[in-house]
């Protein structure tokens, strides 16, 4: 005989201690939740707004240099150490967690043009050549000036030097993945690739304007991005130099430096227009722009090795520390906090195409000059396109071919 009683077991809904979370029994039947999309949309909207509210990327400014900061170097084994070289030949070692200068050295008489920390983290190199980079695993480094030289640490003369034409080079960088490859930017508007094991350079691509720096993707061996004088950045596949994969636009002045995030998903660029921009590796436009009133032309930029911070050195003698994700909460998150953050992130992604959410997410305050310059550039670009269209319309079909934006900037590839 079974007696049925209309009662619920309190164990099902009463928590043992008040520290436990409340039990919320759910019925997941979708017919019972007709407004799920609307509710999630509201949540996404709120999350987007909150993200904007909490977007405070600027963390600290390290001052102490007596001239413009010309180069920065990340320490290879210590996250909290940063080295900076200024235009008066001074090198400073910083402790980032304490935000103070640990040591100051007078390295050169003139500019400290390049600086790099050895892979083991015990020593670092500075140079008066225009560029410097160290091999990932071996005691070999490369400099550039009139030519690109490969040096062995134990020898006083270069073990190999590459020349191609008579132009000078502005920067050189080793591929961090395929460690024997190098890339360099020359002042004849070209980017030259080298293999350390070969006696001759590999290939050269000449663009419409000069590239200032070049940075390889640390996770994808054959991609590199270069910062160009024509306000753009170009991501190339080193196997196909005929046209860049992506043209990253948004800066309104020459781009001076670029550095990849160690995850290889994004990169950050420093520009003469006094802003820093963060680009996803395959997006044509930046996802973030950082600026402050006092920051002048940003000369050098680095993305920290734990992918959480960005360091910028600028003309007005300061080094600035930024968050890589402006609204991210720093430090250890409680599990529930982390879950909530993940959820709101996914919500934002899910509804990113909805106009209100996109508008709020994209909204940034820009300095007046940059805002107007952007507008001006847009007008110029439109005018140029309009003219081209008109010319095409009034000429023989096929006489004025359509040239894509990617192809426009490459003059030629030299074998």
């Amino acid at each position, binding site marked *: 005989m079974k007696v049925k009683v209309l009662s619920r077991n309190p164990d099902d809904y009463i928590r043992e201690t008040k520290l436990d979370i409340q039990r919320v029994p759910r019925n997941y039947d979708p017919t019972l*939740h007709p407004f799920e*999309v609307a509710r999630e949309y509201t949540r996404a909207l709120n999350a987007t707004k909150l993200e904007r509210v909490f977007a405070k990327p600027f963390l600290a400014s390290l001052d102490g240099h007596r001239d413009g900061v010309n180069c920065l170097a990340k320490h290879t084994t210590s996250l909290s150490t940063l080295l900076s070289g200024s235009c008066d030949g001074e090198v400073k070692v910083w402790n980032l967690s304490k935000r103070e200068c640990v040591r100051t050295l007078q390295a050169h008489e003139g500019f400290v043009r390049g600086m790099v920390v050895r892979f083991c983290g015990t020593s670092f190199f500075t140079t008066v050549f225009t560029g410097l980079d160290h091999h990932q695993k071996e005691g070999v480094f490369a400099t550039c000036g009139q030519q690109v030289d490969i040096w062995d640490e134990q020898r006083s003369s270069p073990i190999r030097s590459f020349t191609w034409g008579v132009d000078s080079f502005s920067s050189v960088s080793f591929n961090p993945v395929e460690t024997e490859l190098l890339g360099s930017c020359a002042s004849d508007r070209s980017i030259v690739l080298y293999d350390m094991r070969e006696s001759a*350079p590999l290939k050269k691509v000449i663009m419409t304007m000069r590239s200032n720096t070049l940075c390889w993707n640390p996770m994808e061996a054959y991609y590199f991005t270069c910062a160009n004088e024509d306000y753009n950045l170009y991501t190339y596949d080193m196997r196909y130099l005929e046209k860049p994969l992506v043209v990253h636009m948004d800066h309104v002045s020459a781009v001076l430096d670029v550095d990849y995030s160690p*995850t290889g*998903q994004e990169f950050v660029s420093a520009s003469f227009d006094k802003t820093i921009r963060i680009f996803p590796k395959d997006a044509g436009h930046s996802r973030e722009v950082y600026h402050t009133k006092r920051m002048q032309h940003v000369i050098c930029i680095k993305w920290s090795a*734990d*992918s*959480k911070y960005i360091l910028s050195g600028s003309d007005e003698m300061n080094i600035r520390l930024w968050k890589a994700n402006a609204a991210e909460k720093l430090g250890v998150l409680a599990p529930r906090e982390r879950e909530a953050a993940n959820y709101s992130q*996914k919500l934002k992604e899910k509804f990113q195409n909805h106009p209100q959410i996109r508008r709020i997410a994209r909204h940034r305050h820009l300095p007046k000059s940059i805002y107007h310059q952007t507008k001006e550039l847009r007008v110029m670009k439109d005018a140029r396109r309009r003219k081209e269209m008109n010319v095409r319309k009034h000429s023989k079909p096929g006489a004025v071919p359509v040239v894509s934006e990617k192809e426009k900037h490459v003059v030629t590839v030299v074998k």
Partner: protein
Amino acid sequence: MESEDPEMEREDAEDEREDAEDEREDEEDERRRLKLVEAITALRGGRKKPLGERSEAAVRVSEFAVTAEGERQKVQLSDLIEGAQQSPAVPTQTRKQLQNLSRSQKTVEQPLSRQESERVQRDLAFQKAAVHVSRWKSVVTQNRRSEQLVFPLNQEPSGPKPLEKVVTGWRVQTPLEQEVFNLLSANKQPIHDPVLSPAEEASLRAMSLEEAQIRRAELQKARALQSYYEAKARRERKIKSKKYHRVQNKARRKEFLKQFDQMVKTDPNGALEELNKMELARMKERMSLKHQNSGKWARSKAIMAKYDEGARRAMQQQLELNKDLTQKVRSSLSNQEEQEDGASDPELLPDFVNDAEPGQVSSNPWMRGELSAEPAEAQRSEQEVAAPAAEKEQHEEEEEKADEEEALLRDFESRRKLRQKEEEEQEAAVQDVEDSDEEEGPADQDQEEEGLSEFRSLFRGVAEGLKEAAAAASSAGCSSAPLEGGLIRIRTVEDAELLPPEDVELLPCSESPPSAPQEEAPPTGQKARGNKKRKRNIELKEVLTKDAKTVTVPLAPTLTDTADGSDEELDQRGLIMEAFAGDDVIADFLRDKRKQEDAAKPKVVDLTLPGWGEWGGQGLKPSSRKRRRFRVKVAPAEPRKDQRLPGVIISEQRNGSLSAHQVSALPFPFENHAQFESAVRTPLGRTWNTERTVKKLTMPKVLTQLGTIIQPMTEEELARKKASAAGAGKEDPHKTKDQKRRARKGRHSQKI
């Protein structure tokens, strides 16, 4: 030259030597002759000094200074390769090629210029580099497609590592260790996995095959047997004879009883369950009117019984059957109980036994407070009928003691439960630790079971006592508690105090532990005394010395003074009525709906122009004919969708404010509207999804660790990806090797 005979070869060699000597003589003659000719031509005064023969070794030799045999002759290819034509070391094939070359008259092409050769070199180098770098393609695409990227790439899992891994990472260093390991490896002893040697493992593997075969045979047999039994059961089920089934049932019952007696000895737990089942069946039987001689058939038989012997017998049988079925099962278990009970009569057991066993529903605290725990008055009337008068007198004497003893018993009950739990846990622990104890297990259980049955009997006695006490109380004319109270959960003493005073009388005041259910009632003094004598008896004094813990749990009072409550309630209701006096929500809604309906109705448009085609002015109206003519009638609107839904307003007007939030164009990665809509429709939150789904859906694309340096990708990653892609079966050894290497490397870098 290719003769096989050695003698022949020797002869050939001799011939050659002679030939060579002849030739040398010829050459010398020739040279002399040439010199003579030269001298003569020089006398004649030649235009050009011919190039002399190279005779000395020099550092710088012009390649053009090689002279041909004769004067003023250019060097021919044939001059250079003349020697090759004759020497035996050059294979015939090459000789043929050389001949062909000497015959051709083409000039050799100029070598490439330095620029061009460099260019070729560069091109080749680039192609090589491009091919080399392309081996990363698979890794790159894999990473781009992966749902989640975890950085740093070669992360070692945190926390303690298993012993095997630590051991494999360890290397022999000292000479002593080396010797030991040499010995071990020479004798094929295990080095990393210290459990089994290879030989042992091999033997194990061999054993396992045999075992598998045996097991397979066993399984086959079992399956065959099962099918036989099934077939048999099917056959028997189809038999329609009632008598057969009756006989069968009887036999089964008897057998079951026999088995039960055995079971009591061997498996007391199972026996107890069976007993419970039988009890249940008995209860059902007692409740139903089956076999009670009250059915249609029985009545007809009763009429016939006067005259018919058979009918009388049938009725008798029926009654016997009833008696049989309703009789309590007498097993060794119940026998014990009765012995312990002493004087109590099995026939006089109260309905208390019908209560559910506390153990069965212990998960639900609502069911823990049992029916018999209700205010005792609820059952009073029944008890009065059941309880014999003689016993009642006896119990009345002992009523005063009841309260204390009830409390005691409750304490016992709680302790017993606690102990049971502890014992269970201990048993579990013991089973884990020692295998040898397993044999002693059943014996322990037996003892335990005995104790249990004792307690059961005790409780029965207690319950009886309670009821009788209650009966006595009622007869004494105590005030009766309201019956409509229903089930009240009592947790603490405070709760108990909230109850009406009659209940409090029955309840203990000081010693009751908070968790004790209030099912027990005071036992008779004899029983309490008898309690002491038993094996696992509980010392009264010992229990009494310990203070009961009281846990205060704030609870809303379950009962309030009725008079005050009603007043307050009235006040509340009045307040609400006052507050919402003018609020007729339904009427408002209906009015709204009517308004909307009216607004949606098509309106007649009047296009008459006063004064057009006739006189107009104050007080003059356009003629009715004209008005009729210029009135535009609109087609009647379609029936409203909410026509038949009284509580709903459906408005089909577009809400303009919504469009600002809607997506106007299909976003990029989607190919059609359906795709996009389905993507939006899938909810992510935990309101609509289970925990695991939410975790999966909200997994971040890139995961980094706080304060860890992310190194660029290395060759090892490539090797690892390849290994993982190569095959799932052979994956593990590769992985372990790779991990080993990485672990070693990690340590190395730390040292640096």
